[in-house]
């Protein structure tokens, strides 16, 4: 395998801690280029922190990160990023197109305003997520799924070789979920690497080629086939996986009772 391209992301000896509490412990992992990579683990496992450490948003206690074989660069050849939806104030005075245009600022540089080329790029990104008709909508008026798609479009406008996404599938409707997955596949087809923090174990095998199982430390990493196994999941989730199993079983058995029309709830809504 000599002459193989360097891994898209290389994380070495990475430890992040808040005060004395470790959040990530000695992570060593290489993420191959051109793949859809899921990051899976229980709540508080450090999934978001791993993304933020790769992006340079948190300072690690030790370790380093390389992107495309080089120390992390910012701007033009940096990473595309889809943060958690709750990370910004959606009542901010901007519209959908304004937000997506922010993805082009890195290329624009200081003082220059987005022009026709940037607007076309932003509109193209909006089309990819099916939001072109809402370009002039105030962002406060969007549904949760639409907000998620705006963030995805902004990342597409960044046009980066590597994308990091923090729970893009969380709390979105089925249509948005399908639209996001479609975008992920398009990115992979274009040779981009996409790392996605994911919470839904049911869809991991369908969505991703490669998986990182994380719980403070890296439990396992590799192609889905070899890595996404029951033993590895048990090691990642501990006893909590059985709870998940039981919940899934209960849902399968449960029946939905019929309900007749009731007057709509009273005014206070």
């Amino acid at each position, binding site marked *: 395998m000599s002459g193989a391209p360097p891994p898209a992301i290389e994380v070495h000896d990475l430890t992040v801690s808040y005060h004395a509490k470790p959040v990530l412990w000695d992570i060593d992992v290489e993420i191959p280029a051109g793949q859809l990579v899921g990051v899976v683990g229980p709540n508080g496992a450090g999934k978001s922190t791993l993304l*933020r450490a790769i*992006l*340079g*948003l948190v300072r690690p206690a030790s370790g380093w990160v390389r992107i495309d074989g080089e120390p992390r*660069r*910012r*701007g*033009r050849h*940096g*990473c595309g*990023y889809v*943060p958690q939806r709750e*990370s*910004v*104030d959606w009542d*901010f*005075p*901007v*519209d959908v197109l*304004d*937000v997506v245009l*922010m993805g082009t*600022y*890195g290329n*624009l540089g*200081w*003082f*220059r*305003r*987005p022009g026709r080329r940037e607007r076309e790029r932003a509109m193209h990104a909006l089309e990819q997520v099916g939001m072109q008709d809402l370009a002039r909508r*105030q962002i*406060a008026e*969007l*549904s*949760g*799924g*639409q907000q998620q798609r705006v963030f995805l479009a*902004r990342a597409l406008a*960044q046009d980066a070789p590597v994308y990091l996404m923090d729970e893009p599938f969380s709390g*979105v*409707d*089925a*249509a*948005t*979920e399908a639209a996001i997955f479609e975008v992920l596949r398009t990115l992979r087809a274009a040779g981009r690497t996409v790392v996605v923090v994911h919470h839904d174990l049911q869809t991991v095998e369908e969505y991703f080629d490669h998986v990182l199982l994380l719980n403070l430390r890296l439990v396992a990493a590799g192609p889905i086939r070899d890595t996404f196994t029951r033993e590895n999941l048990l090691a990642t989730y501990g006893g909590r996986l059985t709870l998940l199993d039981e919940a899934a079983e209960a849902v399968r058995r449960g029946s*939905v009772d*019929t*309900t*007749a*029309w009731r*007057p*709509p*709830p009273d*005014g206070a*809504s």
Partner: protein
Amino acid sequence: MIPVEYNTAVVLLGTAALGLAAGSTGSLALLRGRALLSDALAHATLPGICLAFLLTGSRSHPALLLGALATGALGVVLVAALSRRGRIKEDAAIGAVLACFFGAGIALSGAIQRRSPDAAQAGLDGFLLGQPAGMLLSEALTIAGVAVATLLLVALLAKEWKLVCFDPDFAAIEGWPVRLLDLLLMLLITTTVVLALPAVGVVLAAAILIIPATAARLWVDRLVPMLILASSFGVLASVTGTLLSARFPALPTGPLIVLAAGCLFLISLLVSPRRGIVARATAERRRRRERERRRLLGTIFTEQEAAPESPVSEGALARRRVWGPGRLRAHLEDARRRGWIRWGPRGIELTDAGRQRAARIVRASRIWEQYLLSQAQIDRDLIDLDAEEIGHLLPPHLVAELERSLADRGLLPLGSEGSPA
């Protein structure tokens, strides 16, 4: 037209320029969550003014404002240091710094007054509540120059500051120096606050940054219009306050400017077309009335559905205990006037138009219910209980599927099949 004296004209120039700068700076401060910090900053300037007087013995503005700048900046740095890494919550740090610095300032000014009552008093008291009446042309021109520089800087860095205010993490990833941009913004806020001191005083300086910006936000939904409107409100408030104070010399200018800004805010809060209290209350009242109408039609429809042969009696509706007898009567009368129901020989009958609308209402409501029941991962924000037509809210294939499962259980309202999806 009020005749404007030379003195008043000078003061007008100064305060109007101040309002212009404060509106734009204040908008950015507000969006970056620095409104409270700018208030602490203003209060923290008082000890600096006093110390500068003690050191130089001069009442000239440049010396005193330099002192103000020094302790004001110190206060901001202290808040940042205290609240870094969550050591102390930021609001607590702001409260503590504001109170301590202001207390120190008051103590110092008390000491100064005792030592040299005549010389100090006028100058220092002016800084507490503002005293622009004695403004010199050179001072007014300085303020105007700084205001123009502020607007230029905001125009130059609007894109960068917009990004940092909206999503600082994303800005950092894209390679923008977030700390530098934050520092620049803080410097701009500091300059504006210090500039405002002679006009509106330590206690109220932050108000002319915060209030016009807050009022502007109620009218517009994009950044540049907000900056322009906030600056316009700032100028309007400054001019109004200054002219009122020139007309009624007993009333101090600074508080009048702030009051004028407060009035603009109050008016905006009441009548702004989308966020205003009146508009929201009107829309809510209309929504509620519509909802009641739909509820009545839906109830009559389901009663009829249960017993298709017999007309619906008013008593049957009353037994639903949704409305009291008086309200029910009024709603029925309203529905009759609108041509949805008529009083038949044995009770209430839906007219053709009424039946069609009722079927649509019941269908929409049941589809939403079915949607909630059957779709585990839903976009709750799509649900709109007031919508009678669902086609534009949910994808058509999903509506068809929901309708099928309703029809399977005999819950699809008769007469609604023909209505557009």
